[in-house]
Every structure is written in C-alpha cells, then in structure tokens.
C-alpha cells in the first residue's frame, strides 16, 4: 500500500511538469511581448514608466532570454518564492488573486462532486434494479438531457425562470449586503442560499453521466454469480442489492473521479462566468480577454494540478476500500 502511494505520488511529478509546460505555453504563446503591452497599458492610463522599471521587469521575468530559460525562471519563482508572476491587469501579484479566488473554486467543486455522487449512486442503483420501469426511463431521459444541455445554457435558463416567475436574481455567491462582510453565521447561511444554483448547474452533466455509469456497472454486477449466492443464503433483496452488488459496483464509480473532477472544474469555470461567482473562472476569462497571461497561465496550471491531485486522492481512496486492489498493489 505504501509503495503504491509512493509510486503514484512520484508519477505525479512528470504529470505536473507537463502541465506546467502547457501552462507556460499559454503564457508565452500570444504574439508580442506582454511587457510592451503592459507598458502601453500603463501609459494609456497616464502613468510614466521609466527605463529602469522596464529593465527591472525584463530581468525579473527573464524576457530577454530564450523560451526554456524563461520557463525555468517562471517555474523556479513558483517553487522557490511562490511567485506566480504579476497580473498586469489588476496590477497585483497573481498569488494574491489566487489566494482570494481559489478557496471558492475548491469549495464549489468539492461540494458539487459530493452532490454528484450522493445523487448519482442511489439513482443509478435504483435504475438498475428497476430496469425498464417508468422511473428508469425518466432518469435515463433526464440523464441524456443533462448530458446534452450545455452548462451555461442551463444557468441562463435557470436565471431566466427565476427572474421571470419568482422575480429573484440568482447570480453571485452572496447577497450584496454580505459580499464584503466578515464571516458570520448569517453570511454562511446566505452562502448556502446561493450555492445550490451553481452546484445543480455544474453537477447536472456529471450526475447524468455518473448515473449512466452506475446503472451500467450495477446491471453487470447484478448479473454475477455472487449475487445469486447472496440470495441463496436467504438474504433479503435489499440486503443483497445494497450490501453485496452496490458495494462492489461503487468501486469503479469512485475510480471515475479521475474524469468527473476535470469535468466539474471545467464546468465550474464557465458557469461561474455566467452566474458571476467570485471564483477563478471569471478571472481566468477576463485575463484571457485582456491577454493578462501570467494570471491565465497560473490559473490553468493550478486548476490542472488540483485535478491531478484530486484524481490521486481518489485512487488512494479506492485502493483503501477495495481489498482486491489493496492486495494487488501491495508489492
């Protein structure tokens, strides 16, 4: 088990390296020198930029060096100083912006993930056990729809429906009065009141595909011999389904966190833009529109790295739950 975790953790290093290269490519790819555009922007705002300042910036980001040196410089600053560079747009260190926004992204994503699983597993089990019943058809249809409706469209429709019929605006994460308030019980309650919309919107497609997977795996498991053995013991159907078939079927479902998580983080980015949530998504979007590339690249890097870590955690969780994997990967 320990070797397994160690091996998986070590394998993460090349993964993170590759992701960082991609992220750096995003920073480096746009034509033109961002320093130039930064200076141009500053000057447009009426600021005077001195020659020394420009030189200092050039040195800090190694802009006069070839690409690989610039990459090494970038990554070194991240590892050594936690310095992700400067956001030209906000004129603040990217690190600060990350620290502000990332907790919300993680919070929304994890809550959505939990919601997705909590909703999908029982529904999947039910659909499989009552295969071809009307409930199964409804869930299947809903599932297909959930897959087909783009996240942002669902958000728009929900916003329209709530605005039109209830007169409520459902964007944002807090009501205006709490937006800048300090954390309190009331603020937390307000957060919960807002949170369910993005969770449902982001979670729909994930839940839909997860229901289908769960249903499929469950149907497979229900056809296996050990289920009949359990029935032959005289166990009641509910015990057979929950304690035996479902327990085995849940394992492959946990292993698909690996692709549910990217999906959720992906969905979160776009939904947050539509619903105007204070997470990384809108910031990433703005940074892309304004070519604030250090901010964009760092976001891509951090989001991907988070996904990779999430996947690793789910794999370890799986190995811990399933005795077959636990023993298989022991050595």
């Amino acid at each position, binding site marked *: 088990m320990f070797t397994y975790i160690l091996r998986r953790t070590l394998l993460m290093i090349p993964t993170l390296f590759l992701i960082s290269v991609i992220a750096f490519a995003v920073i480096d790819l746009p034509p033109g020198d961002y320093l130039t555009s930064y200076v141009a922007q500053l000057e447009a705002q009426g600021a005077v930029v001195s020659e020394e300042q420009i030189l200092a910036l050039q040195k800090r980001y190694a802009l006069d060096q070839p690409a690989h040196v610039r990459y090494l410089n970038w990554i070194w600053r991240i590892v050594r100083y936690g310095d992700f560079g400067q956001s030209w747009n906000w004129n603040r260190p990217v690190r600060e912006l990350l620290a502000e926004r990332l907790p919300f992204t993680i919070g929304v994503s994890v809550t959505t993930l939990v919601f997705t699983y909590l909703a999908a597993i029982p529904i999947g089990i039910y659909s499989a056990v009552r295969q071809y019943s009307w409930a199964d058809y409804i869930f299947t249809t809903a599932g297909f729809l959930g897959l087909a409706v783009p996240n942002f469209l669902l958000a728009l429709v929900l916003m329209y429906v709530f605005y039109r019929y209830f007169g409520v605006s459902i964007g944002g994460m807090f009501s205006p009065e709490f937006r800048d308030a300090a954390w309190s019980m009331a603020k937390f309650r307000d957060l919960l009141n807002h949170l369910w919309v993005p969770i449902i919107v982001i979670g729909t497609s994930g839940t839909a595909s997860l229901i289908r997977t769960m249903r499929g795996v469950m149907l497979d498991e229900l056809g296996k011999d050990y289920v*009949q053995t359990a*029935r032959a*013991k*005289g*166990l009641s159907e509910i015990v057979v389904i929950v304690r035996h078939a479902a*327990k085995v079927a849940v394992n492959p479902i946990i292993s698909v966190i690996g692709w549910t998580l990217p999906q959720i983080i992906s969905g979160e980015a776009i939904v947050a833009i539509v619903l105007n949530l204070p997470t990384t998504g809108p910031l990433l979007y703005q940074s892309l529109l304004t070519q604030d590339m250090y901010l964009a690249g760092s976001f891509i890097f951090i989001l991907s790295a988070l996904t990779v870590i999430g996947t690793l955690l789910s794999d370890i969780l799986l190995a811990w739950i399933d*005795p077959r994997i636990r023993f298989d990967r022991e050595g």
Partner: protein
Amino acid sequence: MKEVDDILQVRNLRTYFRTDNGLVRAVDRISLGVRRGETVGIVGESGCGKSVTALSIMNLVRPPGRIVAGQILYRSGDGSTTDIAKLHPNGRQMRSLRGNNIAMIFQEPMTALTPVYSIGDQIAEGVMLHKKLTRRQARERAIEILGKVGIPSPEKRIDDYPHQFSGGMRQRAMIAMALSCEPEVVIADEPTTALDVTIEAQILRLMKEMQSQLDLSIIMITHDLGVIAEMADRVNVMYTGKIVEHAQTDDIFYNPKHPYTLGLLQSIPTIGDKRRLTPIRGAVPNLLTLPEDVCYFAPRCPYAMEICAQAEPPMYQVGTAHQCKCWLYEGNEVVAV
C-alpha cells in the same frame, strides 16, 4: 414413484424465459423426487435446463425467466409441507427456507463469492440471519465449519478475501457457506466443473463426508457422467428442458433405455479403452426453434420413427424405479405425475 419419504418433490415444473427472440421453455414439465439422505443426480449437456431446474427449486429464477406452472413441495423435518413454486421469490417465507433448509453450491467458486467481503463475513452473514446468533458466535461457527471442510488454520484464514484463496479452497468455502446453517437439502450446480481433477476428487470426497455426517440430501447437477457414477444414488437425464430418463444409477449405466442416455455413454472416452467412440450425430438444438409436441431428440436419434416427429412421447415405466420418455417403449405403463 414412492412419495412418502421424499423430502423434496418437483411435479410438472415449467420454467420459461420470455426473451426478445421468443419463448424459451428452459424447464418443461419435469418431475423428480429427492429422499432424505440420498444423492439425486441431474445430468445433461449445456443448455438442457439443469441449472434452471436448480434455480427454480431455490425460487431464484430471475426475469425474463419465471416458474409458470408446477409444484415444488418441500417437506421439512417437522412434517409440514411447503410449495416453493407458490411462494414469492423475495418473500419472508421463501427467504427463511433459502440457506437455512435448502442451500446451494455454485459452479464458479471464483465469481460466486462477493469479492469485497472476507470469507468469514460471508459465512457469518447467513448464520446470523437464520440462527439468530451474535456476530461473535457467528464467527465462531464460521471458523468451526471452515475447519470442518478442511481449510487449514481456519482461525487465520477466516479474515482472508476470496481472491486470496485458491480455486479448491474457494469451493471448500462455498461448501462451508452452504452447510453453515445445517440445511437438509443441498443443491450442487456443477460444483467441480471449474476445478482440476485432483481438486475435483478432493471436493467430491468432502461432499460425501459431509453428507454422511449431516444426513444431507444432495441434488448433484453435472454434465460429467463420471461424477454422477461416483456420487449419485439415482439419476435424472435431461435433454432440452425435459427429463428423458430416470433410474437407479446402476441402471442408467448398465441398462440405459433412452437412446440419448445410451448415446451419452458411448460418447465418453474411458481410460484403457481405445475403441472408436460412437458419438450422437448432430448438435443440441436451439430451444427457440423447436416445434412443440414432438420428441426433441428425434433428429439425432438412430432409432427415430415416424411417430417421434409427430407426437411427444409420455414417460413410460420401463423397470423397477426406471422411467423413460421414448416411443420405443410404447405399450409399457405410462407414469402419471
């Protein structure tokens, strides 16, 4: 058929499967009885309905299959009789019989155990349910029974998971599980087919030992006539969902009456005999394409007559406790069921 001491009586059982491609009469009007302490064999080739028969007796047939008619009478030790075919498959009454009075051993010891629970937990589960024991007592019982079926140091192995056991050990664990609640009837569905010969011999010996210790009635389902010869007291030969011959084991092997039984016997090679085999021509037909009310063996039968393609033969009494479903014995007494 003397019915008085039968612990289990199957009468005119029909189990049909309604598939997309048509109706499959997997078990079609079969009758058989099992006496206390004896081993009744059911032998036949793949697809003849022997496994469905086993599942029907356990009332474990799953949709699209269903018991459509017939009786499965179980006479328990206190003299009361239950018709299993009438019980709801998931009802309380059926569940209290399953595992407790009638237990089953499955073919694939690899897939027949839940992979995520330890062997001990899986045995204890049934014991706790039927014998109302505490977890600790059930565990004691599981260790005891595992030792009985020949698992070395059962107190250590009880916490192992199925994949840590070898094939033979898993089948021993299956047997332990089946016997844990001291059932009266055990249905063994091809219990040794997935095992190597040397392990098969161990398992068969174990089953015999257990039978004499616990006074079990065993229904032995297999395609292997060797296993039947070794284990069964009486044999039912099945073909395409019907029992075509029933007799004492000795009679089946030395005085077979049905052409199919004879064909099977002549098809198996025996050690020390190099003479050319006499196979049955053709192959087992697809149950979907069969016409009704004929003898299904007729196309492969060297003795086929006009009538075989026109009407289904009844079961004839052809000797002491020997019945055969074949037109060759027209004129003999017809067995009523």
